[in-house]
């Protein structure tokens, strides 16, 4: 057969398969979500808060040059509804006034606490404890150029059996910790890590580091990301977690068993996608040891985060995510198709290689060969149009499925107009946004091959800048 024919057939099968898999995940997610909501009905959060057996949890907040928001962020974290909480802020070599602001606001004093560096990190300058808020510790450390290193220092200092990593510029809902820990209580012996949902903060009204009104952002680039986040979390993560194959827990909000994180060596300091890398290494370790475990995703504990508002930052972020993907998949390539790694090695990792890593390459080759086939007359124009229409309709169906899940579960966007806007954007997401994403991911591959593993700056509007509705 002609190369172009093979290529076009491969593209067709690839495209259908990737969407069918997502459709399958959507069905699983709807089922799992419904079950979770029934479970929540029987679980009174007040009882968890009041129970003497609720385990303590340590929030780790890596902070690098966060002087604008650190005090209010820490205040909001200390105000979370959880009975036994410890907050460790890791000042990761900030060159601004982050530490001074904390010292001033929380009356920090040098603390004499036991710190055993189970995970090697850059040197610490000092450990502080607040004299007005005994639950707050601040580690002042030298910058190692990676967030992972700061988190590792926090894990070393944590005293609770569970640690939760939170970005300093994100907002956790008041009950999010109790809700995420409900995922642990369901089976504390087996559940080693739980991820919560990360939602787009842009456009919402924020007062005192708490979301007061959830609104869709105005700019199309941000709304597209809302749909992407809904699809990735409510379908992708929910679906994979249903089969205990969750490959990633977002670095912005996740709870981990502290001892297990230490056992796997903590977050990899120079990993580009340290969150993905950690979860894959956890799967590896637990499967190697043949331990029963579950890495879960719970859709209702919510962390709100700011997403890029300009194309340049978005392009950088997507390229970085793709670099992070390669940076994790490549060192763990030995897990592929190995019996001891079970479904992780046979299903989720191959999926990530084929439908995540290779996706931009296959798409690029596909677009090229289809155009060539059209020019050479090997492909009828009507069939080409039908195929385009099918691809568009199928992908839109999946996107609308994520809006449906949002509607069936949490209905954060209460206004009719907001839902209508979401649905309309689902129709426009696949052109040209999808193609742009492909280009950014290709850039990520190119940068990785060149050895450029920099994070790059993301332009942020800042939480306080989100206007009242």
């Amino acid at each position, binding site marked *: 057969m002609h190369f172009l024919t093979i290529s076009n057939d491969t593209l067709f099968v690839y495209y259908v398969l990737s969407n069918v898999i997502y459709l399958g995940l959507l069905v699983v997610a709807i089922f799992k979500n419904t079950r979770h909501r029934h479970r929540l009905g029987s679980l009174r959060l007040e009882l968890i808060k009041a129970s003497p057996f609720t385990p303590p949890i340590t929030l780790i907040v890596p902070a690098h040059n966060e002087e604008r928001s650190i005090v209010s962020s820490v205040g909001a974290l200390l105000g979370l509804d959880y009975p036994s909480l410890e907050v460790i802020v890791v000042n990761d070599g900030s060159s601004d006034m982050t530490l001074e602001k904390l010292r001033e606001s929380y009356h920090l004093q*040098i603390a004499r606490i036991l710190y055993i560096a189970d995970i090697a990190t850059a*040197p*610490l300058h000092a*450990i502080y404890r607040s004299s007005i808020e005994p639950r707050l510790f601040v580690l*002042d450390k030298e910058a190692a150029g990676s967030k992972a290193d700061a988190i590792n220092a926090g894990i070393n200092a944590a005293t609770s059996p569970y640690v939760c990593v939170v970005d300093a510029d994100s907002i956790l809902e008041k009950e999010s910790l109790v809700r995420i820990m409900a995922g642990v209580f369901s089976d*504390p012996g087996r559940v080693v890590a739980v991820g919560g949902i990360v939602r787009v903060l842009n456009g919402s009204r924020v007062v005192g580091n708490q979301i007061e009104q959830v609104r869709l952002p105005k700019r199309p680039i941000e709304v597209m990301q809302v749909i992407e986040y809904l699809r990735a979390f409510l379908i992708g993560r929910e679906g994979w977690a249903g089969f205990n194959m969750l490959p990633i827990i977002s670095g912005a909000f996740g709870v981990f068993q502290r001892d297990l994180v230490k056992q796997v060596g903590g977050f990899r300091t120079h990993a580009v996608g340290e969150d993905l890398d950690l979860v894959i290494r956890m799967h590896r370790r637990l499967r190697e040891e043949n331990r029963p475990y579950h890495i879960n995703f719970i859709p209702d504990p919510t962390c709100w985060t700011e997403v890029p508002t300009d194309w340049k930052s978005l392009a950088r972020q997507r390229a970085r995510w793709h670099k992070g993907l390669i940076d994790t998949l490549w060192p763990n390539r030995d897990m592929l198709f190995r019996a001891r790694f079970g479904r992780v090695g046979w299903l989720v990792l191959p999926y990530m290689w084929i439908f995540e890593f290779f996706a931009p390459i296959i798409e690029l080759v596909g677009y090229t060969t289809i155009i060539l086939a059209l020019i050479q007359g090997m492909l009828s124009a009507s069939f080409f149009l*039908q195929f385009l229409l*099918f691809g568009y*309709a199928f992908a839109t169906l999946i996107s*609308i499925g994520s809006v449906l899940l949002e509607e069936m579960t949490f209905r954060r966007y209460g206004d009719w107009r907001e839902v209508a806007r979401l649905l309309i954007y689902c129709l426009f997401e696949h052109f040209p946004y999808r193609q742009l994403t492909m280009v950014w991911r290709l850039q990520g591959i190119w940068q990785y091959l060149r050895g450029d593993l920099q994070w790059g700056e993301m332009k942020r509007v800042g939480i306080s800048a989100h206007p009242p509705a």
Partner: protein
Amino acid sequence: MEFVSSSIPQVGPAGLLLRAILGSLLGICFLVGFIVLRRWYRARYFRRRNERTVALRSWWDNIVSGKISALDWRFDPLDCDIVESILLDNIEMSTPEKLPPLLDCFRISGLLDMRIYEARNSHGWKQRTALLALGRTRAAEAVPALAEGLDSRLRETRIAAVRGLGRTAIPEAAIPILDRIVAGHLDAPERSLKNALVNCCRSSPGMLVNYVAETQGPVRELLARVLGELASPELGEELLALAADPLPEVRASAARALGNSTTSYTLPALHTLATDPEWFVRLRAVVALGQVENLGKIRILLHAVCDVNRHVRQRAAWALARMEPQLEQILEDVVATKDEYALQAFISELERSGAIEKIIGALDGSGTCSQTALMEVVAGARKSVELTGKAAAAAAGAH
């Protein structure tokens, strides 16, 4: 795409791709339609529910007293649901005096029997919802039906039964759980079991003592942990037996209970527990000593402030630093132990409580040689506390 295109005619005139397009478009229409309809239906349902809630609330006293017959609301599913949820909320929040009329309303209207029937004969979510509702009634007659749920072959149902029994918060509800735990017949998450037992046994922790005595291994530890939360002075001399138990969890629970006790054996028992081989038993004993109003505890705390475990040391220092009139004497005694860690712990607790300046002022004013020497020791210890903090941080960084 030849093989794909060539396969189209085989599947009929519309073609595979056309069918797929049509299917996808239908799917989109279905999902959008579902979202719109669902929104519309929910808005209508909540509006109606709101209206009925207002109406039923306005008749509430008559509904509870039975002046409005249950027949008037019981067979309208929405009304029945609203009344039941209000009743259950009220029952959960009510004081023992206000409980009987609410429970009577629940019984007379047949809601309780309906829930018992559902708990026994339904399956899946309906059964679990019934089990939880039964638990919220706090009615003793719900216990047998809830206990049957413990024997379900489904784990979710067993958990719902455990939670239901826990919510009744009556001692009778603990018995089916305890019997099954002891017999090893109950597979449910440990945390759910402990929470349920704590709720049920709160008013009579003594019932746990026999079960603790009968069991071994992990079950005994689980029950001891619950007892540790609940043990109270009312356990009387049984506390002494628990204080001598071979299981550290049990001894720790006894220490905790002794903190609230004022009997003649409190101090000797806590003294023994403060020298226990297990650090967390010693810690519990030292915490309990902090609560005891008896000057005799100073001697025991002075011993504990020299403990090998830093948590015990710090907690003993915390307790000592709050014995205001005796602080100078205690400081002398701590210095006399010649234990630098003890002195550092005590000084840091004095600094935290703000008492250090008063002591320094008092020592400064006296001017005797021994007081001056004591001042020097305090100043040295304060310096050392600060340096140790910095050294700890530096050592951490060196790794």
